[in-house]
């Protein structure tokens, strides 16, 4: 641990200012803890490696029953058990997809490459999706495993996400019909839209229900909506056009232009079908709590000048 740099200048003829007492006293404690943090994260036993056994003797006393290296190995084993257990809770679907040994291998590789950085175990899996992109999963399982990881991470985000403020029904009811054409829709912080290559939601759901579902091997691209309702995380499959419309709205495009963009280039009869479906989608989105707010666009006269304008 080093002292925070002083904001006061030190004259050249004075020796450098010593670190403050509060920080300097921890110097060798820091060394010790840094060493142990490395030893405790070793995948293999300290007691089986002669050089590490010597290090252990320098650090730990041991006793008549347990050697110093064995004492450190107790903590080393606990590191792996605790974090594997935590990840297993986060990824029940992945556990089913991979099976025991490949799952252990993945977790070990992940924890080695991405050591825990947050005090909260809830954040332990947050780098798993990025790590999985380059991880050599067993043959034929990579696509399904990566899709499952993305899905299960979204599941955690939705479960732990902040409660959205309730929609102001009176304000929305008072909106003029014309305002809906330019209003922006704010997607709830406890909603996730996912495009997945495999039906991972069905696999996880079955696993959580105590079943042992088939592992899909053929890709089946799907659009999913994950949302929290009554404190439970639920999923719903979306039609491709519904997912596309929702994406445009989430990006801040008002409803009418969004529908226009979706309809662009389509045959007249397709546009008519689209028009008929939009109402149903919106009713469903409202039921699921997809939107946290609807913001009326300010009248043109009230709009602030562009940055840099005169």
């Amino acid at each position, binding site marked *: 641990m080093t002292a925070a740099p002083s904001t006061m200048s030190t004259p050249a003829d004075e020796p450098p200012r010593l670190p403050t007492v*509060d920080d300097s006293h921890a110097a060798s*404690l820091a060394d010790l803890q840094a060493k142990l943090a490395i030893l405790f*994260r070793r995948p293999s036993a300290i007691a089986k490696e002669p050089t590490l056994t010597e290090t252990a003797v320098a650090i*730990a*006393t041991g006793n008549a029953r*347990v050697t110093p290296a064995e004492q450190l190995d107790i903590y080393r084993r606990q590191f792996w058990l605790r*974090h594997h257990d935590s990840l297993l809770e986060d990824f029940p679907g992945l556990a089913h997809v991979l099976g025991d040994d490949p799952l252990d291998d993945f977790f070990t590789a992940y924890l080695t490459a991405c050591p825990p950085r947050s005090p909260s175990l809830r954040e332990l899996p947050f780098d798993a999706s990025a790590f999985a992109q380059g991880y050599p999963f067993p043959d034929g399982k990579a696509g399904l495993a990566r899709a499952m990881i993305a899905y299960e991470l979204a599941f955690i985000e939705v479960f732990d996400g902040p409660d959205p403020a309730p929609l102001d029904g009176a304000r929305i009811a008072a909106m003029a019909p014309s305002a809906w054409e330019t209003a922006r829709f704010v997607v709830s912080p406890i909603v996730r839209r996912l495009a997945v290559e495999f039906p991972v939601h069905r696999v996880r759901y079955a696993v959580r229900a105590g079943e042992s579902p088939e592992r899909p091997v053929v890709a089946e691209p799907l659009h999913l909506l994950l949302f929290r309702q009554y404190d439970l995380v639920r999923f719903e499959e979306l039609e491709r056009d519904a997912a596309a419309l929702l994406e445009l709205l989430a990006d801040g495009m008002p409803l009418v232009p969004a529908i226009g963009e979706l309809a662009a280039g389509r045959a007249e009869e397709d546009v008519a079908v689209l028009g008929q479906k939009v109402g149903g989608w919106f009713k469903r989105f409202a039921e699921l709590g997809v939107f946290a707010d609807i913001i009326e666009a300010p009248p043109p006269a009230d709009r602030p000048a562009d940055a840099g304008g005169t």
Partner: protein
Amino acid sequence: MSSSTPRLGLPDLGIGLGLRIPHYAHVFEERPAVDWFEIISENFMVAGGRPLRNLERAKEGYRLVQHGVSMSIGSSDPLDWEYLRKLKALTRITQTPWLSDHLCWTSAGGTQLHDLLPLPYTEEALKHVVSRARTVQDFLEVRFCIENVSSYMSYTSSVMSEWEFVTRIAEEADVGLLLDVNNIYVSAFNHDFDAKTFIDAIPANRVTQIHLAGHTNMGRYIIDTHSGPVIDGVGDLYEHAIERVGSVSTLIEWDDEIPAFEVLHAEGEKARARRDAALARRAARDSGAPERVALPSAPSAVAP
């Protein structure tokens, strides 16, 4: 509050239980008679959703006390102010009368080990923890209590006993002690010291809470697993502690292979009986009266 005041002036809440997820439905629907519940702070330091809803339900009718596992008061890493801000926000919700965490380190160099790792009992570590404990207590604006941990290793660099280390930190930082009697039992076995020596050495008036739990004896060493009931050896040690420190809030922890709520509740009642017996002996000792000895009840029928 003066350190000569029992429990540093904090209330004796009676016998509490650790509130755990498998018991939520029973607790929220049946509302069993429990003096108080201890919650793990980190389980509720989230932005929203079910954990906070459950916390609100737990608050309805029960006194809650926060206990943490991730402060890492002994780490050489800087204090995690984001963590502390969330912790403080939670204290405002729970109105916890005190807040505890372990006298340990859990992180180094920014890497979190998520374990309650023992500190070397050195002057350096002592000064480091004292400084941080004072800072934390000032920031949280609630009495901070440190808990002695179970340990499976002892350091070659230690220059004092664990009880001297714990005592000096509590005194110099002016914080409370969460005396984990099971942890004393476990560490006494693992490091070959007399558990009663530990209890007899700590400053009695700083003990604001006691923890009891089960553990797993591996033969050559004991692991603090919080599984199974409190063994008699720990119960006896608990009575010794109560005789020394007086009436102190006591908590049953059970975190692995969690049983039905009734089983946990029964553990609490066993602790209550032991506590009552120990307090009676303490009162008798203080008044100079001879100790009452409970006689076995007479059989209802005499065998021929």
